[in-house]
């Protein structure tokens, strides 16, 4: 074939083919694993946190191209943010940074947000002094 057509835009395809931050973190400070009831995808995000700031992030994803790209982009975006900033993270940031996702795939970006917030909750649980900042109430449902 002379031309190449892609299912997703070039940014999504790039993150799917060459995902950033793929893997696990040794001695992670917070780990979150969530599943999408809608489709069955599963996403895991591990965080390294020091001085209230996300120093490093990794992901592992069982899911489609856009789920892999969403988790890759989400881990890129949150590195360097404070816990407070990360708790306000929205899936829309992932969608925008990826240059858009097909409507039926928006839930993949929501899964990335949920995995990140689950990882932050895990961290907060291990640090009771931060408990009042639990992100649970802020999590937006799909």
């Amino acid at each position, binding site marked *: 074939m002379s031309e190449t057509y892609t299912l997703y835009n070039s940014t999504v395809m790039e993150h799917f083919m060459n995902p950033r931050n793929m893997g696990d973190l040794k001695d992670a400070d917070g780990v979150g694993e969530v*599943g999408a009831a809608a*489709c069955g995808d599963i*996403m895991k995000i591990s965080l390294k946190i020091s001085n209230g700031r996300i120093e490093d992030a990794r992901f592992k994803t069982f899911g489609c191209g856009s789920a892999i790209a969403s988790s890759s982009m989400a881990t890129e975006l949150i590195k360097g943010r404070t816990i407070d900033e990360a708790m306000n993270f929205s899936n829309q940031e992932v969608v925008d940074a990826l240059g858009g996702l097909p409507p039926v795939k928006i839930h993949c970006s929501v899964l990335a947000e949920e995995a990140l917030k689950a990882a932050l909750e895990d961290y907060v649980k291990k640090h009771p002094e931060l408990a009042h900042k639990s992100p649970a109430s802020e999590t937006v449902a799909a």
Partner: protein
Amino acid sequence: MRQVYLDHQASTPVLPEVFDAMKPYFTEAFGNASSLHQHGLRVREALKRSRGQMAALINADSAEEIFFTSDGTESANLAIKGVAYANERRGKHLVVSATEHPSVMQSVEFLERQGWTCTRVPVDADGTLQLEALRAAIRPETVLVAVHHVNHDIGTIQPIREVGRVCAETGVPLYVDCEASAGWLPVDVREFGAAMVSFSPHRFYGPKGVGVLYRNKKARLVSVIHGGVQEGGRRAGTENIPAIVGGGMAAEISLTELPRRIAHTATLQSRLWKGLKERIPYIRLNGPEPGPRRISTNLNLSTEFIEGEGQLLLCDLNGIAVASGSSCVSKSLKISHVLAAIGLDHALAQGNIIMTLGMANTVEDVDYTLETFAKIVTKLRGMSPMWDEFQRGVIDSVIAPTGRGKSFSQHAADVSGKAAH
């Protein structure tokens, strides 16, 4: 990069001789078959010839039993709704297998919303219709039984002669969807005891835009598309002559090529499945093993711990065209209803890939696919939390249980707070 087309169940290229046969009917022989002048009479001859070619492919008694529609979906709609409406006063009960094509399933659901009832006959773990359950499902008010010849998804060949006998004993007309078999496996309407059979030339090197419905006198049928009196009043609308001509030619070629097609694809199918099993741990074939109970063109695979769309995309980026029944590929976010009907674990349905072979595929294509697919699986497993959790004994394999860890489905439910559908 090598290009390997492994989606012949979706469509096939038009053969050069088929294309050549079609060409005059776009330009000089452009007439409408309903016209009474030379232009109309000329294309009427072409229509008649194609009807004969279609009848020969399925061993029908007469070309008059062949009706042209726009595609397989329309044929299925006409078969189901046409018979249901024609027999409304006799009874409003239909019997279908649980693994019919969506065009059959959705037609039935449409009728159910209007007061018809339908029994869906279960299949076993290989997708084979349970004959006793079929027998039990038929009632005095049953007006139609619909069972496909070969499953479009998992390649199971149904015991259609036995189904035909059950229908003959009970006097209920049988509709056999042969979309996944015609052109690749002998279809004999008389042997099947079928009152109706449908198939589409674009599945066997003919063009899109034409479907066929065979109907004998056993099935009363009313039109569902109204207008002129084309197709004996059973299907109004100007006939797509170029597609009908090309389809007829494709049917004629298929009939003579059938033994060669079966031999060629069976060799590749066996090499492909054997190679996949050798190279990839935790892979499963859905449907019967290659042999007399499975069509030679189809492999429906579940690769554990990874999802299907990612596999499909990486195959495509490597020049290999495949399909998937994963929920991520479907616009409804649901797994294939066929995979659900055979009781496949959701985790395995999620990792589904369908490869369908054709005449242009070679041994080299198969070997390239084996090598490439094994790399793709390794790459995606490396990215999958499930693979890692399996290695650590957190979750267990469905395909080859080790006895360690919980099930994938349990784990998925735990992390999503809801059971996977």
